[in-house]
């Protein structure tokens, strides 16, 4: 290996440049892929939260409907009693 290095001179800029660029692009691409995966996950969480929110709102509406119906039923029974 030492012999291999001894015969390998420093690469000129135009040759080494593509290797250096490649190495830094790898780091950039890894971070970018990770951010993209995180973005997909976040949108899934957002969608789940939206579903839960609409479910909670529907329940709230149901509960309100029951509570507004209840006094009317009492009122209707009162004269009878």
């Amino acid at each position, binding site marked *: 290996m030492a012999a291999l*290095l001894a015969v390998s001179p420093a690469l000129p800029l135009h040759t*080494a440049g593509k290797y250096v660029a490649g*190495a830094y692009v790898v780091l950039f691409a890894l971070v970018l892929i990770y951010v993209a995966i995180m973005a997909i996950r*976040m949108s899934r969480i957002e969608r789940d939260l939206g579903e839960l929110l609409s479910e909670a709102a529907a329940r709230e509406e149901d509960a309100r409907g029951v509570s507004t119906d209840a006094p009317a039923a009492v009122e209707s029974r009162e004269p009878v009693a």
Partner: protein
Amino acid sequence: MHPMYGKGLRALSIATVATMSVGLALVFFYAPLEEEQGFLQKIFYVHVPLAIVSLAGFVLGGVFAIAHLRTRDQRWDMRSYVAIHMSLIFGVGTLITGSIWAKGSWGHWWVWDEPTLVSYLIVFLLYVTYQPLRFAIEDPERQARYASVFAITAGAFVPLNFMAVRLSTAYVHPRVLGSTSNLPAPMALTFLVCLVGIALLYTTLCKYELTAKHTRAQVRALRRRLAGESERAPERSRTAAPRLTTPHPSVGGGHG
């Protein structure tokens, strides 16, 4: 109070971007060209920090696993899992950048008689089995326990492996740790800034991952609680990731 994994994430993200930007500026505008390798040596400032941080992350995963076995707190298992998971991603970066450097420097993508390269590959392949191991165990308790034992054993193997390679015959792989004094001051400064930048990137991404996993667990818990009032929550599917159970709002929880 619920644990807050996202606390300090913004400051950490800003610090990471700032440090990495300064690091890149130093690499291309401040650090001098190396005599033997010329411009190609610039790969050193990304490859070596990635390798150091990934190996440190593997050891950190073992330390978190010890905490998990001591306390039986599933949050330590989650931290251990995320530390190892992130180290694997950084490991992929190390192997690819190393191969690019080897191709430019030696004319080969991989050299099998280089102990540093092969030992790193062995460590990487060892940790690649971590996720399948977790996935193979269905019971969450047993999964966490076995994964912790694996993380501790493999974590102990990392420095031993590193020392064994150091003690073996030194070939031509550049030595960094313990020999930074041999680097000219501008190169050493650039390297240290890049190392801090990559370490900050690792910490930030780990925190992002922990925050996302915790948020997902909270959403699942909320769904189950809402479903529990009318119908039984569906069974969870098998997963390699630890299953966090969020405490009830009335129950106190630590910080992440």
